[in-house]
């Protein structure tokens, strides 16, 4: 628990630091003596930028748990080197329970379309059972041939458990503003970690299709359908806890960024 608090605090500090840096980055200071070549090199540069994207912020009203879920990415930095923050989680509205994970990484552009990411991920559950664990995280994030967003990651938990995740998303423009975004994600694990409901092998696969309307680039409400299925030992553990193995849900949400 302390760990999770610590991590959240770190996340907040990082977030605040990023915002400050963003403000500094966008206000230019000019030296009173005018410019030399070195100053010009410094100014005429990509500089820094930041992004905060709530890719999915949605509600699934038709399921038993009625979760509100979040999938967000933020980065701050230059063209090549960036600090990344990724967050995922859900809060059940039918009960008090929920779970979330937050990942803070350093990312470096290693090919024209891919960043390599290295950092830490902290998982947290709350409600009936509360638990925390941390991982080292390594991954890639970028645009794969085929023009779909692709991010494979591997995680090494504090207990030495190795797991992995692959996510992919594609954007289909129906019109300039009406966009369908199919996505898939697969979790795999090398060991059984029953306390986290994880069995070795392919644990869970998710697929979703969300149809959004971009009133602005930065503001797009959507409707979609999200489906997930657990496999093998993971499925057995879910059944044991009275959870469903296959879930499908209509979702309504909003995609916003700045």
């Amino acid at each position: 628990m302390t760990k999770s608090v610590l991590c959240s605090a770190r996340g907040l500090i990082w977030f605040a630091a990023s915002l400050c840096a963003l403000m500094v980055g966008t206000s230019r200071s000019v030296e009173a003596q005018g410019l030399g070549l070195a100053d010009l090199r410094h100014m005429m540069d990509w500089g820094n930028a930041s992004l905060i994207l709530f890719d999915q912020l949605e509600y699934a009203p038709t399921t038993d748990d009625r979760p509100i879920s979040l999938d967000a990415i933020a980065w701050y930095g230059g063209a090549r080197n960036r600090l990344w923050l990724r967050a995922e989680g859900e809060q059940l509205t039918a009960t008090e329970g929920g779970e979330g994970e937050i990942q803070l990484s350093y990312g470096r552009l290693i090919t024209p379309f891919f960043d390599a990411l290295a950092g830490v991920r902290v998982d947290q559950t709350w409600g009936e059972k509360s638990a925390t664990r941390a991982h080292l995280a390594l991954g890639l994030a970028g645009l794969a041939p085929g023009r779909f967003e692709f991010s494979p990651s591997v995680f090494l938990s504090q207990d030495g458990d190795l797991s992995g995740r692959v996510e992919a998303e594609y954007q289909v423009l129906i019109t300039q503003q009406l966009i369908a975004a199919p996505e898939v994600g697969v979790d795999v694990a090398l060991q059984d970690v029953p306390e986290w409901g994880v069995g070795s092998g392919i644990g869970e696969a998710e697929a979703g299709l969300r149809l959004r309307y971009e009133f602005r680039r930065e503001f797009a409400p959507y409707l979609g359908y999200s489906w997930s299925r657990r496999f093998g030992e993971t499925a057995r553990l879910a059944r044991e806890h009275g959870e469903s193995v296959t879930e499908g849900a209509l979702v309504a949400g909003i995609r916003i960024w700045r």
Partner: protein
Amino acid sequence: MEKDILLDQIDRVLSSRVSRRGFVQTAGALTALAGIESILPGYARPQTGSSAARPYALEPRMEGGTAVYDLDIAEHRIPIAGRSATAVTINGTVPGPLLHLYEGQDALLRVSNQLHEDTSIHWHGLILPPEMDGVPGVSFPGILPGQTFEYRIPLRQHGTYWYHSHSGLQEQVGHYGPLIIKPEGGYPYQFDREYTIVLSDWTFEDPYQVLQNLKKQGNYYNRQRLTLIDFFRQVGRIGLGPAFRDRLMWDQMRMDPTDVMDITGATYTYLMNGLAPAENWTGLFQPGERVLLHFINSGAASYFDVRIPGLPMTVVQVSGQYVQPVETDEFRIASAETYDVIIEPQDRPYTVFGESMDRSGYARGTLTPREGLTAPVPSLRKRPLLTMADMGMDHGVMGEGGSMSMDHGSMSMPAAPAAAAGVHDMMAMTPAVTQAAGTAPHDMSAMAAGAQTGDTAKYAIAGIVRTQGLRPPGTLPGMLEHEPDIHAPENAAVPMMVQSRMSHPGMGLGTDGWRVLAYTDLRALEPRQGFRAPDRELELHLTGNMERFMWSINGVPFKDAELIRFNYGERLRLTLVNDTMMNHPMHLHGMWLELENGQGELIPRVHTVNVQPAERLSMLIDVDAPGMWAFHCHILYHMEVGMFRVVEVLRPGEESIEPGATEGHD
């Protein structure tokens, strides 16, 4: 002979009306009138009903043979496109005043900075002492708030030029204006009336916000991406298989065929002499007159395709340099280029149409014999798509086999299997699509010329210096394969083959059934004096990664780049290869670029050259200007993030400002 023409003109001018600002200084009474008007900021001046007074002509004050201008750079709220906007103005207007100077004069331009930040003026296209060039950090420290800088420029050239800020993104917010230097010996052509037409782009967003948006999402302003609806249309046209393969091919490369401009009509209002299309800049003429139009593209990030429907245009000057008159119906003007054309309008109104290259908007004005008349405004054409040619993938077989039909149009279906046989598999992937998407044809004459004159190199290599086996001067470069190094990650991908595309007017042009100007049409009026072969060739590659909005040269942004060394006194061939899929208008300060377009010693001179995607072109430079000079892409935002270099021209024995390794120094 030329004197006669001049006298003739002056005669005509004196008997004409006030609107002919160009020559009013010869008539005292009119000078006074012009003087009073020009001290008022533009928005304060009486509206005469005609907007022909834009841009406002400003005559210099003569002080002991020196032409003196006082220019105030200040922030003002002015109306643009009917809305109130905060602009950086020059003497209160956008564009700034039209400066009239004479060849042979010495000019003193006093520029006062009334902003809260540094500013500068760069005199685009003028050959001048390096400390007068106006690039902060390169030529001088810049003009600090409250300061006045005196530019002293001996004018030893004539023609149509312009001036603009070289500080930050000020050029986007109005800091630009036209500059015309009258020739000493009179014009080699006759005209009765002249208008200056400054094309530009305006955004009501903060340009730094525009840049931030692009950094977050490279296609932020592209509202013409391919949709599912486009896909179904394509299926209808060429069938499911080819349409699918085409889409797949672009997706495989992670490129977008609609990625024509970074910043588009989605945020831009395109201006003609500071007026939006609805405000309709209007110029009057009398039927039967020959009218000279000075077109200047002061757009920060825009290309315009200019035409006057129903009226052929005779191009007489490019980049301020005379060319042999060439008649055309349309020309593309890249950012920072200038074109002078002569028209002979009939007794009816005409629309002057400057369509953005991506067809997301247009600048528009009217030329009319009588106040109040307008002509139909053409509808925007379909936005062009990038093609295989823009990736250097449509002509591999030419170089290898040479057995193919020289009729490029027939190159699509039947030729493709042959192409697939060994050379380029990408080509086989989308044989039908290449055609369907409206392939930009390459000109065979260009290739033939390249083949004849023979670049001995096999690969296009960034940063390479060649001193041996250089082809004759004035010829078009041959087709080369790109080196294996793709300059990643700063650069996303490279063309397979690079070659001259100068005979093609550019993407989306040439298929409308009318004439469009191409660089190969340009011939200097006179054979170039001292035209000779290059001593040395330096090859630079234009590189970028649209996903990240990274732009660079040789895969290195300015911040990390070394100086480029030119040797004083040498005849240099500068070869540019565009590795990106966007057009880049490249501008060298301080020295002329002689554009090797296959016209031999009738080689045209330019200050800015547009380099098309996958193009390899070359220029000859007489390196005669010691000092530090900027060399950069004139798309303001590309320059700002790193598509910029400093060229250092050292006399023998002089010490470099940054000793050590330099690019392009053997």
